[in-house]
């Protein structure tokens, strides 16, 4: 009761071991849009010859940011499950730079959320990767009646 929705979301993030391991951080969380960052770290490099961060880190950042956007759209941390995630890799991330992701939950039905996202390093208009995801809302939420969990 004492915590705002945003504080709850941040708390959930801090409780996610993989987000903590990556050093992932929520930068903003408003309306149906969430923006997150993962810092550049040597242990996350995917290509030791170039120092480029692994595609898998971008995958996890995009998945997580999409999930946060769903919760931002719902206005509450709620259990969700990723149905599918499509990622287009535009270019290699620049070695040494943090990676950001911005996700927009553009459609919410009673049981499904649809999200688009982009990951970038310097400029949001020059993405490293873009993503499209669908999530199943698996738990009871305030804004829509609960459906039986399969």
């Amino acid at each position, binding site marked *: 009761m004492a915590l705002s929705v945003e504080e709850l979301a941040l708390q959930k993030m801090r409780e*996610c*071991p993989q*987000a903590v391991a990556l050093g992932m951080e929520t930068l903003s969380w408003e309306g149906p849009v969430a923006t997150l960052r993962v810092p550049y770290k040597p242990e996350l490099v995917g290509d030791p010859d170039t120092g480029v961060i*692994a595609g898998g880190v971008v995958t*996890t950042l995009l998945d997580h940011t999409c999930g946060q956007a769903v919760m931002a759209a719902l206005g509450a941390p709620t259990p969700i499950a990723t149905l599918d*995630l499509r*990622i287009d890799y535009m270019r290699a991330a620049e070695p040494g730079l943090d990676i950001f992701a911005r996700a927009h939950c553009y459609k919410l039905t009673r049981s499904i959320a649809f999200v688009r996202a982009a990951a970038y390093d310097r400029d949001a208009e020059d993405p490293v990767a873009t993503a499209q995801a669908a999530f199943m809302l698996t738990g009871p939420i305030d804004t829509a009646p609960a459906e039986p969990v399969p």
Partner: protein
Amino acid sequence: MSLSPAQQLDATLARIPYARFLGVRGELAGDEMTLIMPFSPHLIGNVTLPAIHGGVLGAFLEMTALAQLSIAQGLARQPRPIDVTVEYLRSGRPVESYARAQIKRLGRRVANVHVEAWQEARSRPIAALHGHFHVSPSDGVPA
């Protein structure tokens, strides 16, 4: 040069910091490769279930595709993803995970790869990936 394919696979994975971050290792039986991701608490995305992070599963599948392509190409160069689609079939439980890739087509520039990950039973996959990868040796920029 004198390394066996299995030793090359081990050496390749050992060189990639992110593979070490996930704790992934490989096994090779002939040309059939399995990547193994032992469970570790930092892989968890949802503490309530608990379940392995969906992004980690996607990353594991992608790494399997890249490793399989490297083997097919004699591990000479690192392939790069163009696009991937990950389907989540079951939640990843806090146990060891396995993945195998099948190269559907290996062209001069682009390869099409399907990957499946499972835990207790291969007939009950937890996630699947299909994607395209750059395999051409000299192009520095996406075609």
